[in-house]
């Protein structure tokens, strides 16, 4: 078996590693390089200008600073709300039912709920964008929420939710949560299923309610999964853009009220022809993602409970 080992390894790795290096690693490396120049992207001439782009990033009050603020908000709100709802629903599905003969049951129709909740996850962002843009539309364009609010006599935003500076970001985050919850429900649910049932049954005998059960048994045993979910959702939060591209006026408006980092990179790279500036912002985003992953792995680590 020693025979021909290295030729074999080489023959299996050459193509995938080559393709990956050429189309993923190299473009990323080039983006770092471009960020130190004044290249517009269209001409062939450029000069190295050091870190000027990075300095100028933090002076751009029109797009970059609002975008950093909004991405920061999404980065906090999206994981917190999605994980909380995912855990809550997963707990309800698995352990929210009656106690029968000392055993806790899941609720009826758990299977049905899982199927329904998960469905948005398989829809493309384009479809989700079209769907929710109409749900949020102003009343005279046939919006669902505005129409329903008016029908029961409540005030609705005149121009719909997405044209309102104060509501647009919340509206977008709500859609992000809407589409992500199902995934984390299933994710946490399968983790919960591997917790031995006798732990809960012992708790029932001790007369513990569901709330202490959740905080004393489920949550500590799911800590690893919660941490994984946190990293996933942080990466999702940093990459938010397509939904905003599909839904909001001016792809980040109105008035930069839903501008996010991804969108600003897009605008500078493909609309404004300021490639170097866009790359600098991309590099900042890259280091944000990297440090987030490192931080959550470092500080999130706890003693693993074996069961």
């Amino acid at each position, binding site marked *: 078996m020693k025979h021909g080992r290295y030729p074999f390894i080489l023959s299996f790795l050459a193509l995938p590693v080559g393709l990956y290096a050429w189309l993923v690693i190299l473009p990323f490396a080039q983006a770092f390089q471009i960020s130190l120049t004044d290249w517009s992207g269209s001409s062939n001439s450029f000069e190295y200008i050091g870190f000027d782009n990075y300095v100028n990033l933090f002076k751009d009050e029109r797009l970059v600073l609002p975008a950093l603020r909004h991405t920061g908000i999404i980065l906090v709100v999206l994981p917190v709300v999605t994980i909380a709802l995912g855990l809550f*629903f997963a707990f309800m599905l698995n352990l929210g039912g009656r106690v029968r003969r000392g055993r806790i049951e899941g609720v009826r129709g758990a299977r049905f*709920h899982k199927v329904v909740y998960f469905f948005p996850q398989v829809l493309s962002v384009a479809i989700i964008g079209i769907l929710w843009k109409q749900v949020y539309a102003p009343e005279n364009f046939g919006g669902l929420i505005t129409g329903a609010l008016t029908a029961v006599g409540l005030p609705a935003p005149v121009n719909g939710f997405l044209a309102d500076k104060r509501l647009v970001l919340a509206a977008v985050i709500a859609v992000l949560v809407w589409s992500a919850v199902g995934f984390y429900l299933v994710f946490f649910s399968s983790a919960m299923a591997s917790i031995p049932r006798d732990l809960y049954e012992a708790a029932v005998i001790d007369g513990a309610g569901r709330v202490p059960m959740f905080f004393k048994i489920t949550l500590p045993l799911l800590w690893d999964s919660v941490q994984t979910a946190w990293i996933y959702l942080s990466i999702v939060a940093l990459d938010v853009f397509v939904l905003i591209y599909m839904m909001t006026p001016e792809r980040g408006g109105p008035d930069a009220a839903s501008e996010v980092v991804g969108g600003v990179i897009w605008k500078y790279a493909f609309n404004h022809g300021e490639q170097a500036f866009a790359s600098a912002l991309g590099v900042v985003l890259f280091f944000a993602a990297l440090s987030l992953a490192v931080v959550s792995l470092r500080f999130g680590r706890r003693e693993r409970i074996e069961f």
Partner: protein
Amino acid sequence: MATDTAPGSTSEGAAEATPPVRTPDRTPRPEGNALNFFSQGFLWLWALMVIIPVAWIVMSSFKTTREIASDPLGLPEAPHWANYVNAWTNGNIGGYFLNTVQVMVFSVTGTMLLGAMAAYVLARYEFPGNRVIYFGFAAGMMFPVFLALFPLFKTLQNVSLLNTYTGLVIVYIAYSLPFTVFFLTAFFRTLPTGVAEAAVVDGAGHYRLFFQVMLPMAKPGLIAITIFNIIGQWNQFLLPLVLLGRNPEDAMISQGLANLALRQGYEGDSGALFAGTVLAMIPIFIAYILFQRQIQAGLTAGAIK
């Protein structure tokens, strides 16, 4: 106890096994009942939040554009099939569909083949540089794709693969590799070594060992990750938008829908837009209902440690 049941099956098993007749010897505790009611309430609330917007768009796709604006909550007076005709002919939904399938036949196959090859070698062979390559792939899962878009555009332009399906296929493969390799490496590591050793004793070479012994054994993992890649590439938006921008009729499905949405903006034919959206949803919906267990397992594959 329930510890030996497969993940995910516990709750369903319990829910389905519940006899409809109450057992007379033990009345349920009131706490359980109140909580049951409460959890059912919340669960249904969210289920409706998923169902209503989707069902509403389906309903709206049968309305005239005027009905959509004037009576958003009402039923269509008569099913307005013309929307579907418009979406299919003017909106070219069928064409986008075929384009996407055409690209994905190659990109998904390529991803799985190259991903499995790399993962297998990384999981099963010790050689200098093994860890570096492994972490190189794993790190790719964190790269924000925006950062690479423009250099990638230039790269493909230089080799005249911009605006071609070949270019898109190899880019899809390259960008699907990180997760595929990461996941499959973990999977190949869990496979028992006994079978492989037996095959080697029988005189199987490296290649036969991989294709005839290890690949069949890795089938569950391969299926899960294939589903993951199919859904991921089907829904891909940014890469085709940048790399396939020139001819609108060559667009992938997501991009085609976005074009339709953009056109609807100034033509004002929202009925056709919704019909197009529903048409794009139908195959996903059917596949989801048929394979929902595998899809859920495939997409949450990261949960398996």
